């Protein structure tokens, strides 16, 4: 609790803040010249210190400009020493119009002056970035605050904080949103910085293409020149040796050139299958941040923020319903909100829990799906076809055993997130090709034979319950 302080009244530092400021100053002084400290920090005070940010009061806006442009690395070092970790630095002064760059204080500026920010500058954006993915539209909660703070730090001082930044998390939890927010922020702030955002799939495809057309020079130029390289879904590099080799060199060139690299993945680097160890260690070099599913408060905050932004008015109960039933995937949560909102506005009908449940039947089913394991599927299928559980993993080929096994593989593919390799492993170390074949076969049979379709549908719904 000693880390926190607040103002008692508007213009004086309370005792805790004063003490913290003393420590911060002491850590800062040795890093910059005595003259600079006297000029820029002797009239600065610590207004408040929260767990994610600190606010400094300055006499006027030149201080914010000069400190932000020249003393941030030294200040952040002092902050880490004093607070144990980085903090977002905010400034407070009588007039901040125009010099304000802190994203969270954008609202303050709009109140303070008739800011031309209202005349939206048609900022050209980096290709591939969705303009809606910004820091402002990202809802921060305990599930993602570290990833968020790290991303913000990287955006504010590329290549000077965490390099590389490795963000991982499940589907729909904000990896792409954060990465693109970094890209947008840097792009807007520093016109001379080259920003490149791609999915690793694009990287791989362009690499293959470059080899085929003997165009490696151009390819390397594209990927080794940016000042900020953002690669989404880096897990797809797994198993692709040559692409990994190329990426290894790309990574080294950028890293040695003090360029910022940001990567996202659906799992930690060490869990990406068939990824060269030297890449794993490089990905883990900087900071790894996890994006976890949001807790209920955060889910509610997300829903409210989105509803606000789209000027949707729904009863609080609806928000509660959605936040309670959709727990694991923010994208799914937002999609559900949109569906409910459109239904409400189009039909004009009252929304009861039942109507919403019915409206979102498939989404809610998807949610349920998360918890189905391959083993559960194997059990149910074995039970239904009256074969032994062991037959699922055995090498026996008679159709009476092989077919149920194939059905189980098909259902595993449909109902879980497991990869072909993982499914193959779960069925007695089978090849992924075998699993793929099984799925194709079962699909064909479903299309051809009604009774097969019914059987599988029956097993499916019994698993979902």
């Amino acid at each position, binding site marked *: 609790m000693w880390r926190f302080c607040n103002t008692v009244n508007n213009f004086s530092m309370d005792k805790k803040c004063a003490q913290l400021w003393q420590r911060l100053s002491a850590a800062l002084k040795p890093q910059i010249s005595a*003259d600079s400290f006297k000029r820029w920090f002797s009239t600065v005070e610590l207004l408040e210190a929260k767990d994610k940010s600190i606010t400094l009061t300055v006499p006027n806006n030149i201080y914010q400009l000069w400190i932000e*442009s020249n003393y941030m690395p030294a200040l952040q070092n002092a902050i880490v020493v004093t607070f144990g970790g980085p903090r977002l630095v905010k400034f407070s002064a009588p007039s901040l119009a125009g010099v304000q760059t802190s994203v969270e204080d954008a609202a303050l500026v709009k109140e303070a002056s008739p800011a031309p920010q209202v005349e939206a500058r048609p900022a050209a954006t980096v290709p591939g970035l969705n303009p809606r993915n910004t820091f402002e539209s990202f809802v921060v909660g305990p599930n993602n605050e570290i990833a968020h703070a790290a991303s913000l730090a990287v955006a504010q001082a590329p290549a000077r904080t965490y390099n590389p930044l490795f963000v991982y998390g499940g589907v729909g939890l904000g990896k792409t949103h954060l990465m693109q927010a970094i890209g947008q922020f840097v792009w807007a702030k520093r016109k001379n910085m080259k920003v490149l955002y791609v999915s690793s799939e694009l990287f791989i495809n362009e690499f293959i293409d470059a080899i085929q057309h003997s165009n490696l020079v151009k390819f390397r130029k594209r990927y080794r020149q940016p000042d900020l390289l953002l690669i989404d879904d880096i897990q797809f590099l797994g198993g692709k040796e040559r692409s990994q080799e190329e990426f290894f060199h790309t990574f080294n060139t950028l890293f040695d050139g003090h360029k910022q690299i940001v990567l996202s993945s659906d799992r930690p680097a060490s869990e990406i299958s068939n990824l060269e160890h030297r890449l794993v260690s490089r990905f883990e070099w900087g900071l790894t941040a996890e994006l976890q599913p949001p807790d209920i408060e955060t889910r509610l905050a997300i829903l409210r923020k989105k509803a606000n932004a789209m000027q949707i008015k729904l009863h609080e109960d609806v928000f509660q319903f959605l936040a309670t039933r959709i727990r694991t995937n923010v994208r799914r949560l937002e999609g559900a909100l949109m569906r409910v909102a459109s239904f409400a506005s189009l039909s004009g009908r009252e929304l009861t829990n039942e109507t919403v449940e019915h409206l979102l039947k498939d989404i809610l089913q998807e949610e349920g799906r998360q918890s189905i394991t391959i083993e559960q599927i194997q059990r149910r299928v074995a039970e239904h076809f009256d074969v032994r559980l062991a037959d699922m993993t055995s090498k026996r080929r008679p159709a009476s055993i092989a077919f149920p096994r194939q059905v189980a593989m098909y259902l595993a593919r449909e109902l879980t997130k497991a990869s072909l390799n993982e499914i193959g492993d779960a069925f007695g170390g089978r090849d992924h090709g075998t699993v793929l074949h099984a799925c194709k076969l079962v699909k064909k049979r479903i299309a051809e034979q009604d009774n097969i379709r019914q059987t599988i549908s029956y097993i499916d719904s019994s698993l979902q319950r």
Partner: protein
Amino acid sequence: MKFSVAKEKLLEALQQVQNVVSTRTTLPILSNVLLQANEAELHLTTTDLDVGVRGTCEAHVDKAGATTLPARRVFNIIRELPSSEIQIDVDGKNAASIRSGQSFFKILGLPEDEFPPLPKFEDAKVVTMRQKELRDGLRKTSYAISTDETRYVLNGVLFSFKENKVTLVATDGRRLAMAEIELEFPRSHESDLIIPTKAVTELQRLLTDDGDVKVSMSNGQIAFDLNKTLLVSKLIEGNYPNYRQVIPGEAKERVKLEREMFLNSLRRVSLLASDKSHSVKLNFSKNNLDITANTPEVGEAKESLAVPYKGREFSIAFNPEFLMAPLRALTEDEVFLDLIDEMSPGVLKIQTPFLYVLMPMRISS
């Protein structure tokens, strides 16, 4: 409307107004130049809604009138016309027939009443400056303007009218350039205005070294009347940071340098400044200055200059481009570099009121 005009005169006027036209505009009328012919003159106006320029050229006007035509295209046509006499005839539907020698062009335009008018300057505060002084002042400061669009107040030059002096300031947070122009004006005209980068750039192109420029300020707009040409621009709304805070106090060492020699040495040495560090090191010792740069795995460069220096030996590093920019803009033979220590900014000065504050870079061990 119908008029004839000399090619060179029309071309010159078109050149003056071309740059303001935005290449990526959503409103088609903004890609056009407004042509107004009356008496013995042709006025050409272009605008991008923030900055507008109006040029004038002599013409023989048979029939007065006005229209707007695609600026870029008309410019390209006029430039290629064979003869020095051009006749332009515009019908009621804004189709312009351009004749010169054996060439004939017909260009479709848009009506003049669709063209956004340049703002009026009623109740404006007016001052008159020498063009040369304004041009010098802008040249000495405009390179330091910030390009960071999130700090919009810095995307221009501050004109501070105070106590019979106009102070021009430009900064991007890492360096600050300040120049002064002596000028008499009444106290009622004292104000601080921020002129956006685009207007500054255009102004620098249009200003000459002769004559006066009449500056009118009113309602968030400013106009520069250079007799035959008029430039109008919106002002940036906001409070420019208190730049005086940036200017260091007493210098510990003051070094006199020969500007051109210093600039040339910097230019050569900076060829070996690496892409990653962007820095050159200045090492001062008794009557000597060593300028060095190096790029790991590539090589290094060093030049020594004889300079009158009797202070303690010390080194300071700067971004070479940030150090060369003011040196290029100045014309004086000698400049002074005021220094305090390796972590404090350096200040470049000359005999007349001007200064350039530049933050140093960390010297890597």
